[in-house]
Protein backbone atom coordinates (compact mmCIF):
# COMPACT_ATOMS: atom_id res chain seq x y z
CA UNK A 1 0.00 0.00 0.00
CA UNK A 2 1.30 3.45 -0.83
CA UNK A 3 1.44 6.20 1.74
CA UNK A 4 -1.50 8.60 1.35
CA UNK A 5 -0.67 12.24 0.62
CA UNK A 6 -2.58 13.46 3.63
CA UNK A 7 -3.71 11.35 6.50
CA UNK A 8 -5.37 12.31 9.76
CA UNK A 9 -5.72 9.81 12.57
CA UNK A 10 -8.07 10.28 15.50
CA UNK A 11 -7.90 14.06 15.02
CA UNK A 12 -9.61 15.77 17.96
CA UNK A 13 -9.90 19.14 19.68
CA UNK A 14 -12.10 20.52 22.40
CA UNK A 15 -12.85 24.10 23.38
CA UNK A 16 -13.61 24.15 27.06
CA UNK A 17 -16.30 21.56 27.49
CA UNK A 18 -17.25 21.49 23.83
CA UNK A 19 -15.86 18.69 21.73
CA UNK A 20 -15.54 20.36 18.35
CA UNK A 21 -13.79 17.61 16.41
CA UNK A 22 -13.47 14.09 17.69
CA UNK A 23 -11.54 11.14 16.35
CA UNK A 24 -11.64 12.06 12.69
CA UNK A 25 -9.71 9.80 10.30
CA UNK A 26 -9.28 11.05 6.79
CA UNK A 27 -7.01 10.09 4.00
CA UNK A 28 -6.38 11.67 0.67
CA UNK A 29 -4.17 10.50 -2.15
CA UNK A 30 -2.43 12.61 -4.74
CA UNK A 31 -4.71 14.10 -7.37
CA UNK A 32 -7.84 13.20 -5.46
CA UNK A 33 -10.72 15.44 -4.45
CA UNK A 34 -12.51 14.92 -1.18
CA UNK A 35 -15.63 16.79 -0.19
CA UNK A 36 -16.60 17.33 3.41
CA UNK A 37 -20.25 17.94 4.10
CA UNK A 38 -22.27 18.21 7.24
CA UNK A 39 -24.71 20.53 9.01
CA UNK A 40 -23.77 23.99 10.23
CA UNK A 41 -21.55 23.88 13.28
CA UNK A 42 -20.62 20.26 12.71
CA UNK A 43 -16.92 21.07 12.99
CA UNK A 44 -15.93 21.16 9.35
CA UNK A 45 -14.08 24.47 9.48
CA UNK A 46 -12.47 23.45 12.72
CA UNK A 47 -11.16 20.39 10.96
CA UNK A 48 -9.55 22.65 8.36
CA UNK A 49 -8.09 24.80 11.09
CA UNK A 50 -6.53 21.70 12.63
CA UNK A 51 -5.05 20.53 9.34
CA UNK A 52 -3.72 23.97 8.40
CA UNK A 53 -2.18 24.56 11.81
CA UNK A 54 -4.35 27.40 13.04
CA UNK A 55 -5.43 25.24 15.96
CA UNK A 56 -3.20 22.72 17.64
CA UNK A 57 -4.96 19.36 17.88
CA UNK A 58 -5.79 18.11 21.35
CA UNK A 59 -5.21 14.55 20.19
CA UNK A 60 -4.47 12.67 17.01
CA UNK A 61 -2.00 13.15 14.20
CA UNK A 62 -1.77 14.79 10.81
CA UNK A 63 0.64 13.34 8.29
CA UNK A 64 1.65 14.83 5.00
CA UNK A 65 3.50 12.49 2.65
CA UNK A 66 4.12 10.24 5.61
CA UNK A 67 5.71 13.08 7.60
CA UNK A 68 4.15 13.94 10.95
CA UNK A 69 3.15 17.60 10.82
CA UNK A 70 0.93 17.56 13.90
CA UNK A 71 1.20 20.79 15.88
CA UNK A 72 3.39 22.57 13.37
CA UNK A 73 2.81 26.31 13.17
CA UNK A 74 0.58 27.42 10.29
CA UNK A 75 3.37 28.99 8.25
CA UNK A 76 5.40 25.77 8.22
CA UNK A 77 2.39 23.74 7.19
CA UNK A 78 1.75 26.20 4.37
CA UNK A 79 5.36 25.85 3.29
CA UNK A 80 5.05 22.07 3.45
CA UNK A 81 2.37 22.24 0.79
CA UNK A 82 -1.08 22.75 2.27
CA UNK A 83 -2.82 25.92 1.06
CA UNK A 84 -6.29 27.02 2.00
CA UNK A 85 -9.10 29.51 1.52
CA UNK A 86 -11.41 30.84 4.19
CA UNK A 87 -15.14 30.66 4.56
CA UNK A 88 -15.41 34.42 4.99
CA UNK A 89 -12.73 35.30 2.49
CA UNK A 90 -9.66 36.83 4.06
CA UNK A 91 -7.87 38.77 1.40
CA UNK A 92 -5.33 41.50 1.91
CA UNK A 93 -7.88 44.15 1.06
CA UNK A 94 -5.61 47.18 0.89
CA UNK A 95 -3.24 45.53 -1.58
CA UNK A 96 -3.64 44.90 -5.28
CA UNK A 97 -4.74 41.56 -6.70
CA UNK A 98 -1.21 40.92 -7.93
CA UNK A 99 0.24 41.65 -4.50
CA UNK A 100 -2.22 39.21 -2.96
CA UNK A 101 -1.11 36.44 -5.26
CA UNK A 102 2.59 37.31 -4.89
CA UNK A 103 2.20 37.04 -1.12
CA UNK A 104 0.81 33.59 -1.76
CA UNK A 105 4.23 32.74 -3.22
CA UNK A 106 5.98 33.75 -0.02
CA UNK A 107 7.35 30.33 0.75
CA UNK A 108 8.45 29.80 -2.87
CA UNK A 109 10.52 33.00 -2.91
CA UNK A 110 13.77 33.48 -1.08
CA UNK A 111 14.79 37.11 -0.59
CA UNK A 112 15.91 37.83 2.97
CA UNK A 113 16.45 41.19 4.66
CA UNK A 114 20.10 41.45 3.72
CA UNK A 115 19.38 40.46 0.12
CA UNK A 116 16.70 43.11 -0.08
CA UNK A 117 19.00 45.77 1.36
CA UNK A 118 22.29 44.86 -0.29
CA UNK A 119 21.25 43.13 -3.50
CA UNK A 120 18.18 45.12 -4.51
CA UNK A 121 18.39 44.16 -8.17
CA UNK A 122 18.09 40.53 -7.31
CA UNK A 123 15.23 41.11 -4.87
CA UNK A 124 13.44 43.27 -7.37
CA UNK A 125 13.95 40.73 -10.15
CA UNK A 126 12.54 37.99 -7.97
CA UNK A 127 9.52 40.09 -7.19
CA UNK A 128 8.99 41.03 -10.82
CA UNK A 129 9.14 37.38 -11.81
CA UNK A 130 6.67 36.54 -9.08
CA UNK A 131 4.35 39.29 -10.29
CA UNK A 132 4.62 37.90 -13.79
CA UNK A 133 3.62 34.45 -12.61
CA UNK A 134 0.88 35.96 -10.46
CA UNK A 135 -0.57 37.56 -13.57
CA UNK A 136 -0.62 34.21 -15.34
CA UNK A 137 -2.25 32.53 -12.38
CA UNK A 138 -4.94 35.18 -12.27
CA UNK A 139 -5.56 34.68 -15.96
CA UNK A 140 -5.81 30.95 -15.40
CA UNK A 141 -8.35 31.29 -12.61
CA UNK A 142 -10.36 34.00 -14.31
CA UNK A 143 -9.51 36.38 -17.17
CA UNK A 144 -11.71 38.97 -15.49
CA UNK A 145 -9.43 39.02 -12.50
CA UNK A 146 -6.38 39.38 -14.68
CA UNK A 147 -7.83 42.51 -16.21
CA UNK A 148 -8.29 44.05 -12.81
CA UNK A 149 -5.00 42.82 -11.40
CA UNK A 150 -3.81 46.27 -10.38
CA UNK A 151 -6.96 47.12 -8.47
CA UNK A 152 -7.22 46.76 -4.71
CA UNK A 153 -8.54 43.41 -3.55
CA UNK A 154 -10.94 45.11 -1.15
CA UNK A 155 -12.99 46.40 -4.07
CA UNK A 156 -13.86 42.97 -5.50
CA UNK A 157 -17.36 41.48 -5.41
CA UNK A 158 -17.90 38.27 -3.44
CA UNK A 159 -17.50 35.74 -6.25
CA UNK A 160 -14.26 37.32 -7.40
CA UNK A 161 -12.94 37.41 -3.85
CA UNK A 162 -13.32 33.63 -3.82
CA UNK A 163 -11.52 33.30 -7.14
CA UNK A 164 -8.71 35.50 -5.93
CA UNK A 165 -8.40 33.39 -2.81
CA UNK A 166 -8.12 30.30 -4.95
CA UNK A 167 -5.47 31.98 -7.11
CA UNK A 168 -3.57 32.97 -3.97
CA UNK A 169 -3.76 29.41 -2.68
CA UNK A 170 -2.50 28.04 -6.01
CA UNK A 171 0.39 30.50 -5.94
CA UNK A 172 2.23 28.57 -3.26
CA UNK A 173 2.46 25.52 -5.54
CA UNK A 174 0.74 23.41 -2.93
CA UNK A 175 0.17 19.70 -2.89
CA UNK A 176 -3.24 20.12 -1.32
CA UNK A 177 -5.74 22.94 -1.39
CA UNK A 178 -8.38 23.23 1.29
CA UNK A 179 -11.43 25.14 0.03
CA UNK A 180 -13.70 26.26 2.84
CA UNK A 181 -17.23 26.67 1.46
CA UNK A 182 -16.29 28.29 -1.83
CA UNK A 183 -19.91 28.99 -2.69
CA UNK A 184 -20.96 30.56 0.60
CA UNK A 185 -22.71 33.87 0.19
CA UNK A 186 -23.18 33.46 -3.55
CA UNK A 187 -26.28 33.03 -5.68
CA UNK A 188 -26.81 30.13 -8.11
CA UNK A 189 -25.45 31.87 -11.15
CA UNK A 190 -22.24 32.85 -9.38
CA UNK A 191 -21.92 29.36 -7.95
CA UNK A 192 -22.25 27.79 -11.39
CA UNK A 193 -19.58 30.07 -12.77
CA UNK A 194 -17.33 29.29 -9.81
CA UNK A 195 -17.81 25.54 -10.27
CA UNK A 196 -16.75 25.99 -13.87
CA UNK A 197 -13.66 27.90 -12.84
CA UNK A 198 -12.71 25.35 -10.20
CA UNK A 199 -13.21 22.54 -12.68
CA UNK A 200 -11.01 24.35 -15.15
CA UNK A 201 -8.24 24.82 -12.61
CA UNK A 202 -8.47 21.17 -11.70
CA UNK A 203 -7.90 20.09 -15.27
CA UNK A 204 -5.03 22.59 -15.60
CA UNK A 205 -3.33 21.20 -12.52
CA UNK A 206 -4.03 17.48 -12.56
CA UNK A 207 -1.66 16.43 -9.78
CA UNK A 208 -3.22 18.67 -7.20
CA UNK A 209 -5.44 17.33 -4.42
CA UNK A 210 -8.44 19.13 -2.99
CA UNK A 211 -10.47 18.99 0.15
CA UNK A 212 -13.64 21.02 -0.21
CA UNK A 213 -16.11 21.92 2.49
CA UNK A 214 -19.41 22.58 0.85
CA UNK A 215 -23.06 23.20 1.56
CA UNK A 216 -24.25 23.57 -1.98
CA UNK A 217 -25.26 20.07 -3.03
CA UNK A 218 -24.96 20.90 -6.71
CA UNK A 219 -21.31 21.67 -6.21
CA UNK A 220 -20.87 18.51 -4.17
CA UNK A 221 -22.54 16.41 -6.86
CA UNK A 222 -20.62 18.12 -9.64
CA UNK A 223 -17.08 18.06 -8.37
CA UNK A 224 -15.65 15.53 -6.00
CA UNK A 225 -15.07 11.86 -6.24
CA UNK A 226 -15.45 11.07 -2.58
CA UNK A 227 -17.52 12.59 0.23
CA UNK A 228 -17.04 12.50 3.99
CA UNK A 229 -19.90 13.50 6.26
CA UNK A 230 -19.18 15.22 9.57
CA UNK A 231 -21.76 15.63 12.29
CA UNK A 232 -21.15 16.73 15.87
CA UNK A 233 -17.43 16.68 15.22
CA UNK A 234 -17.35 13.06 14.12
CA UNK A 235 -17.11 11.47 10.74
CA UNK A 236 -20.36 9.54 10.32
CA UNK A 237 -20.01 8.39 6.75
CA UNK A 238 -17.67 8.30 3.80
CA UNK A 239 -18.00 7.18 0.19
CA UNK A 240 -19.31 8.28 -3.18
CA UNK A 241 -21.89 11.06 -3.03
CA UNK A 242 -24.57 8.91 -4.63
CA UNK A 243 -24.16 6.25 -1.93
CA UNK A 244 -23.56 8.49 1.03
CA UNK A 245 -26.67 10.58 0.49
CA UNK A 246 -28.84 7.48 0.87
CA UNK A 247 -27.38 6.43 4.23
CA UNK A 248 -29.96 6.84 7.02
CA UNK A 249 -27.51 8.50 9.43
CA UNK A 250 -26.63 11.09 6.87
CA UNK A 251 -30.23 11.82 6.05
CA UNK A 252 -30.97 12.13 9.72
CA UNK A 253 -28.13 14.56 10.26
CA UNK A 254 -29.25 16.66 7.33
CA UNK A 255 -32.97 16.31 7.16
CA UNK A 256 -33.40 16.26 10.90
CA UNK A 257 -31.65 19.57 10.99
CA UNK A 258 -33.57 20.89 8.03
CA UNK A 259 -36.85 19.83 9.56
CA UNK A 260 -35.95 21.64 12.73
CA UNK A 261 -35.35 24.77 10.73
CA UNK A 262 -38.58 24.53 8.76
Amino acid sequence: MTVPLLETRNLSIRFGGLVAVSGVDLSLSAGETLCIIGPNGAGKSTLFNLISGIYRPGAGTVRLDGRDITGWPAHRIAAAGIARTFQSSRLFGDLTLVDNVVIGMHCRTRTGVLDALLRPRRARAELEAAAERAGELLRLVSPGLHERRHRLAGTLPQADRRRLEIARALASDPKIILLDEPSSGMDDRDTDALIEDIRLTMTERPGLSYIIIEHDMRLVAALPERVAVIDYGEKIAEGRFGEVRLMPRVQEAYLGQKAAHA
Partner: protein
Amino acid sequence: MDAFVMQNLLNWLVLGSIYALVALGFSLLFGVLDVIHFSHGDVSIVAPFVVLATFQALVSTAFPVGTAGALVLASALAILAVGLVGVLADRLVIRRFRNAPAMMALVATVALGTVIRELIRMVYPQGSNPKPFPRLLESRVQLGDLAVPLFSLFVIAVSVLMMAVLFAVMRYTPLGMRIRAVAEDRNIARLMAIRPGRIFAATFFLASAVGAIGGIFFASYAGVVRFDFGIQLGLIGFSAAVIGGLGSMQGAILGSLLIAGIDTLVQATMVEGASYRLVFAFLLVILVLVLRPSGILGRPVMEKV
Protein backbone atom coordinates in the same frame (compact mmCIF):
# COMPACT_ATOMS: atom_id res chain seq x y z
CA MET B 1 1.80 43.40 63.44
CA ASP B 2 4.71 45.70 62.91
CA ALA B 3 3.62 49.34 62.65
CA PHE B 4 5.90 49.77 59.64
CA VAL B 5 4.25 46.91 57.83
CA MET B 6 0.80 48.19 58.78
CA GLN B 7 1.68 51.62 57.57
CA ASN B 8 2.78 50.28 54.20
CA LEU B 9 -0.20 47.99 53.85
CA LEU B 10 -2.41 50.97 54.37
CA ASN B 11 -0.41 53.00 51.94
CA TRP B 12 -0.75 50.23 49.39
CA LEU B 13 -4.52 50.15 49.73
CA VAL B 14 -4.80 53.93 49.45
CA LEU B 15 -2.63 54.06 46.35
CA GLY B 16 -4.37 51.02 44.87
CA SER B 17 -7.76 52.63 45.43
CA ILE B 18 -6.72 55.85 43.72
CA TYR B 19 -5.28 54.00 40.74
CA ALA B 20 -8.36 51.80 40.55
CA LEU B 21 -10.68 54.80 40.33
CA VAL B 22 -8.82 55.88 37.20
CA ALA B 23 -8.26 52.39 35.80
CA LEU B 24 -11.97 51.56 36.02
CA GLY B 25 -12.69 54.37 33.59
CA PHE B 26 -10.21 52.99 31.06
CA SER B 27 -11.68 49.54 31.33
CA LEU B 28 -15.26 50.72 31.13
CA LEU B 29 -14.58 52.87 28.08
CA PHE B 30 -12.65 50.15 26.34
CA GLY B 31 -15.30 47.57 27.11
CA VAL B 32 -18.04 49.71 25.64
CA LEU B 33 -16.28 51.59 22.87
CA ASP B 34 -13.25 49.52 22.00
CA VAL B 35 -11.40 52.79 22.22
CA ILE B 36 -8.41 53.70 24.29
CA HIS B 37 -9.14 57.10 25.73
CA PHE B 38 -5.57 58.01 26.50
CA SER B 39 -6.50 61.45 27.79
CA HIS B 40 -8.57 59.93 30.58
CA GLY B 41 -5.82 60.72 33.08
CA ASP B 42 -5.75 64.34 31.97
CA VAL B 43 -9.53 64.57 32.15
CA SER B 44 -9.38 63.18 35.68
CA ILE B 45 -6.77 65.69 36.79
CA VAL B 46 -9.03 68.57 35.76
CA ALA B 47 -11.06 67.76 38.89
CA PRO B 48 -8.60 69.00 41.53
CA PHE B 49 -8.26 72.26 39.63
CA VAL B 50 -12.02 72.74 39.59
CA VAL B 51 -12.02 71.97 43.31
CA LEU B 52 -9.32 74.57 43.97
CA ALA B 53 -11.06 77.24 41.93
CA THR B 54 -14.55 76.73 43.30
CA PHE B 55 -13.28 76.18 46.83
CA GLN B 56 -11.55 79.55 46.84
CA ALA B 57 -14.59 81.18 45.29
CA LEU B 58 -16.90 79.62 47.86
CA VAL B 59 -14.70 80.58 50.79
CA SER B 60 -14.14 84.13 49.61
CA THR B 61 -17.84 84.78 49.10
CA ALA B 62 -19.61 84.91 52.38
CA PHE B 63 -21.49 81.77 51.47
CA PRO B 64 -22.35 80.18 54.79
CA VAL B 65 -21.08 76.68 54.27
CA GLY B 66 -17.87 76.62 56.28
CA THR B 67 -14.57 75.23 55.02
CA ALA B 68 -15.57 71.59 55.12
CA GLY B 69 -18.88 72.31 53.47
CA ALA B 70 -17.18 74.33 50.78
CA LEU B 71 -14.76 71.48 50.11
CA VAL B 72 -17.57 68.95 49.78
CA LEU B 73 -19.54 71.27 47.56
CA ALA B 74 -16.50 72.05 45.42
CA SER B 75 -15.71 68.35 45.03
CA ALA B 76 -19.27 67.53 44.02
CA LEU B 77 -19.14 70.30 41.48
CA ALA B 78 -15.78 69.10 40.19
CA ILE B 79 -17.01 65.54 39.76
CA LEU B 80 -20.02 66.76 37.83
CA ALA B 81 -17.95 69.12 35.72
CA VAL B 82 -15.36 66.50 34.86
CA GLY B 83 -18.11 64.06 33.92
CA LEU B 84 -19.24 66.65 31.42
CA VAL B 85 -15.67 67.23 30.23
CA GLY B 86 -15.55 63.51 29.44
CA VAL B 87 -18.77 63.71 27.46
CA LEU B 88 -17.43 66.75 25.64
CA ALA B 89 -14.17 64.95 24.83
CA ASP B 90 -16.21 62.18 23.25
CA ARG B 91 -18.50 64.53 21.32
CA LEU B 92 -15.72 66.69 19.95
CA VAL B 93 -12.98 64.19 19.29
CA ILE B 94 -13.21 60.56 20.30
CA ARG B 95 -16.53 59.92 18.57
CA ARG B 96 -14.88 60.57 15.23
CA PHE B 97 -12.50 57.66 15.70
CA ARG B 98 -15.05 54.96 16.53
CA ASN B 99 -14.41 53.05 13.33
CA ALA B 100 -10.82 54.13 12.79
CA PRO B 101 -7.81 51.87 13.42
CA ALA B 102 -6.95 51.60 17.11
CA MET B 103 -3.65 53.42 16.78
CA MET B 104 -5.29 56.49 15.27
CA ALA B 105 -7.63 56.82 18.20
CA LEU B 106 -4.69 56.34 20.53
CA VAL B 107 -2.64 59.09 18.89
CA ALA B 108 -5.65 61.40 18.67
CA THR B 109 -6.39 61.00 22.37
CA VAL B 110 -2.74 61.56 23.26
CA ALA B 111 -3.00 64.87 21.38
CA LEU B 112 -6.28 65.54 23.16
CA GLY B 113 -4.46 65.00 26.45
CA THR B 114 -1.97 67.70 25.48
CA VAL B 115 -4.84 70.03 24.63
CA ILE B 116 -6.40 69.44 28.04
CA ARG B 117 -3.10 69.96 29.86
CA GLU B 118 -2.38 73.13 27.94
CA LEU B 119 -5.88 74.43 28.62
CA ILE B 120 -5.45 73.83 32.35
CA ARG B 121 -2.12 75.60 32.24
CA MET B 122 -3.52 78.59 30.41
CA VAL B 123 -6.92 78.92 32.00
CA TYR B 124 -5.87 78.44 35.60
CA PRO B 125 -3.99 81.45 36.98
CA GLN B 126 -0.24 80.72 36.91
CA GLY B 127 -1.11 77.27 35.71
CA SER B 128 2.49 76.22 35.04
CA ASN B 129 3.35 76.15 38.72
CA PRO B 130 2.49 73.36 41.14
CA LYS B 131 -0.51 74.21 43.26
CA PRO B 132 -0.74 73.17 46.90
CA PHE B 133 -3.84 71.06 47.34
CA PRO B 134 -5.56 70.79 50.73
CA ARG B 135 -4.98 67.47 52.45
CA LEU B 136 -8.40 66.17 53.30
CA LEU B 137 -9.22 64.86 56.77
CA GLU B 138 -5.88 65.26 58.42
CA SER B 139 -6.93 63.95 61.82
CA ARG B 140 -5.95 60.43 62.80
CA VAL B 141 -7.76 57.55 64.38
CA GLN B 142 -6.00 55.29 66.84
CA LEU B 143 -6.15 51.68 65.68
CA GLY B 144 -4.11 49.62 68.12
CA ASP B 145 -0.70 51.25 68.28
CA LEU B 146 -1.07 52.84 64.86
CA ALA B 147 -2.46 56.30 64.29
CA VAL B 148 -4.28 55.92 61.00
CA PRO B 149 -4.96 59.07 58.99
CA LEU B 150 -8.66 59.47 58.52
CA PHE B 151 -7.91 60.36 54.90
CA SER B 152 -6.64 56.86 54.18
CA LEU B 153 -9.74 55.23 55.54
CA PHE B 154 -11.89 57.71 53.68
CA VAL B 155 -10.17 57.05 50.35
CA ILE B 156 -10.47 53.31 50.75
CA ALA B 157 -14.09 53.53 51.84
CA VAL B 158 -15.11 55.86 49.03
CA SER B 159 -13.31 53.75 46.44
CA VAL B 160 -14.91 50.55 47.63
CA LEU B 161 -18.24 52.31 47.64
CA MET B 162 -17.70 53.66 44.12
CA MET B 163 -16.72 50.23 42.86
CA ALA B 164 -19.82 48.75 44.44
CA VAL B 165 -21.97 51.45 42.91
CA LEU B 166 -20.37 50.95 39.52
CA PHE B 167 -20.87 47.20 39.69
CA ALA B 168 -24.47 47.64 40.79
CA VAL B 169 -25.15 50.15 38.03
CA MET B 170 -23.68 47.85 35.43
CA ARG B 171 -25.41 44.74 36.66
CA TYR B 172 -28.78 45.76 37.97
CA THR B 173 -29.93 49.00 36.39
CA PRO B 174 -31.52 49.45 32.98
CA LEU B 175 -28.69 51.86 32.13
CA GLY B 176 -26.11 49.20 32.94
CA MET B 177 -28.00 46.70 30.85
CA ARG B 178 -28.03 49.09 27.91
CA ILE B 179 -24.33 49.82 28.32
CA ARG B 180 -23.57 46.12 28.28
CA ALA B 181 -25.81 45.62 25.27
CA VAL B 182 -23.99 48.33 23.33
CA ALA B 183 -20.66 46.88 24.41
CA GLU B 184 -21.71 43.50 23.06
CA ASP B 185 -22.96 44.68 19.70
CA ARG B 186 -23.94 48.25 19.04
CA ASN B 187 -25.91 47.47 15.88
CA ILE B 188 -28.08 44.89 17.52
CA ALA B 189 -28.51 47.23 20.47
CA ARG B 190 -29.76 49.81 18.01
CA LEU B 191 -32.40 47.34 16.84
CA MET B 192 -33.51 47.08 20.45
CA ALA B 193 -34.26 50.80 20.37
CA ILE B 194 -31.16 51.65 22.37
CA ARG B 195 -29.47 54.80 21.16
CA PRO B 196 -25.75 54.11 21.21
CA GLY B 197 -24.98 57.85 21.18
CA ARG B 198 -26.66 58.33 24.52
CA ILE B 199 -25.08 55.25 25.96
CA PHE B 200 -21.65 56.48 24.93
CA ALA B 201 -22.36 59.80 26.59
CA ALA B 202 -23.54 58.07 29.75
CA THR B 203 -20.49 55.83 29.81
CA PHE B 204 -18.15 58.77 29.35
CA PHE B 205 -19.89 60.66 32.11
CA LEU B 206 -19.68 57.71 34.47
CA ALA B 207 -16.05 56.93 33.70
CA SER B 208 -14.93 60.54 33.91
CA ALA B 209 -16.84 61.23 37.13
CA VAL B 210 -15.25 58.22 38.80
CA GLY B 211 -11.88 59.31 37.40
CA ALA B 212 -12.48 62.77 38.86
CA ILE B 213 -12.74 61.28 42.33
CA GLY B 214 -9.45 59.53 41.67
CA GLY B 215 -7.94 62.82 40.50
CA ILE B 216 -9.04 64.67 43.64
CA PHE B 217 -7.70 61.92 45.88
CA PHE B 218 -4.46 61.82 43.95
CA ALA B 219 -3.95 65.55 44.43
CA SER B 220 -4.89 65.39 48.07
CA TYR B 221 -2.61 62.40 48.63
CA ALA B 222 0.31 64.27 47.08
CA GLY B 223 -0.68 67.54 48.73
CA VAL B 224 0.02 69.27 45.46
CA VAL B 225 -1.25 69.24 41.90
CA ARG B 226 0.27 70.34 38.61
CA PHE B 227 -1.25 70.61 35.15
CA ASP B 228 0.77 67.65 33.84
CA PHE B 229 0.05 65.17 36.64
CA GLY B 230 -2.51 63.62 34.33
CA ILE B 231 0.19 61.99 32.19
CA GLN B 232 1.49 59.79 34.96
CA LEU B 233 -1.92 59.17 36.49
CA GLY B 234 -3.23 58.23 33.07
CA LEU B 235 -0.29 55.96 32.25
CA ILE B 236 -0.60 54.11 35.53
CA GLY B 237 -4.38 53.84 35.31
CA PHE B 238 -4.10 52.63 31.71
CA SER B 239 -1.44 50.08 32.64
CA ALA B 240 -3.51 48.81 35.55
CA ALA B 241 -6.55 48.37 33.32
CA VAL B 242 -4.53 46.61 30.63
CA ILE B 243 -2.66 44.15 32.84
CA GLY B 244 -5.93 43.39 34.60
CA GLY B 245 -7.53 42.68 31.24
CA LEU B 246 -9.24 45.48 29.33
CA GLY B 247 -12.98 45.51 29.69
CA SER B 248 -12.92 43.66 32.99
CA MET B 249 -13.73 45.85 35.99
CA GLN B 250 -12.41 43.31 38.47
CA GLY B 251 -9.27 43.19 36.35
CA ALA B 252 -8.84 46.95 36.59
CA ILE B 253 -9.00 46.76 40.38
CA LEU B 254 -6.63 43.82 40.49
CA GLY B 255 -4.19 45.58 38.17
CA SER B 256 -4.31 48.71 40.30
CA LEU B 257 -3.58 46.76 43.46
CA LEU B 258 -0.67 45.01 41.73
CA ILE B 259 0.93 48.21 40.51
CA ALA B 260 0.32 50.00 43.79
CA GLY B 261 1.71 46.92 45.55
CA ILE B 262 5.01 46.91 43.72
CA ASP B 263 5.18 50.69 44.03
CA THR B 264 4.75 50.55 47.82
CA LEU B 265 7.02 47.55 48.19
CA VAL B 266 9.87 49.16 46.27
CA GLN B 267 9.56 52.42 48.18
CA ALA B 268 9.41 50.62 51.51
CA THR B 269 12.30 48.23 51.00
CA MET B 270 14.76 49.82 48.59
CA VAL B 271 17.20 52.56 49.51
CA GLU B 272 16.59 54.39 46.26
CA GLY B 273 13.03 53.17 46.09
CA ALA B 274 11.52 56.48 45.18
CA SER B 275 13.61 56.77 42.00
CA TYR B 276 13.09 53.18 40.92
CA ARG B 277 9.39 52.80 41.62
CA LEU B 278 8.36 53.42 38.02
CA VAL B 279 11.04 51.07 36.71
CA PHE B 280 9.70 48.21 38.77
CA ALA B 281 6.07 49.08 38.16
CA PHE B 282 6.56 48.96 34.40
CA LEU B 283 8.80 45.89 34.51
CA LEU B 284 5.87 44.24 36.24
CA VAL B 285 3.60 45.42 33.44
CA ILE B 286 5.91 43.82 30.86
CA LEU B 287 6.19 40.61 32.84
CA VAL B 288 2.44 40.26 33.27
CA LEU B 289 1.79 40.82 29.58
CA VAL B 290 4.48 38.38 28.50
CA LEU B 291 2.89 35.72 30.68
CA ARG B 292 -0.73 36.70 30.08
CA PRO B 293 -0.98 38.40 26.68
CA SER B 294 -4.59 39.47 27.25
CA GLY B 295 -4.18 40.58 30.83
CA ILE B 296 -4.85 38.64 33.99
CA LEU B 297 -8.62 38.46 33.74
CA GLY B 298 -8.96 39.33 30.07
CA ARG B 299 -10.44 36.67 27.88
CA PRO B 300 -7.97 35.58 25.21
CA VAL B 301 -9.41 36.56 21.88
CA MET B 302 -10.20 33.45 19.88
CA GLU B 303 -10.37 34.55 16.30
CA LYS B 304 -13.30 33.18 14.36
CA VAL B 305 -12.03 31.52 11.23
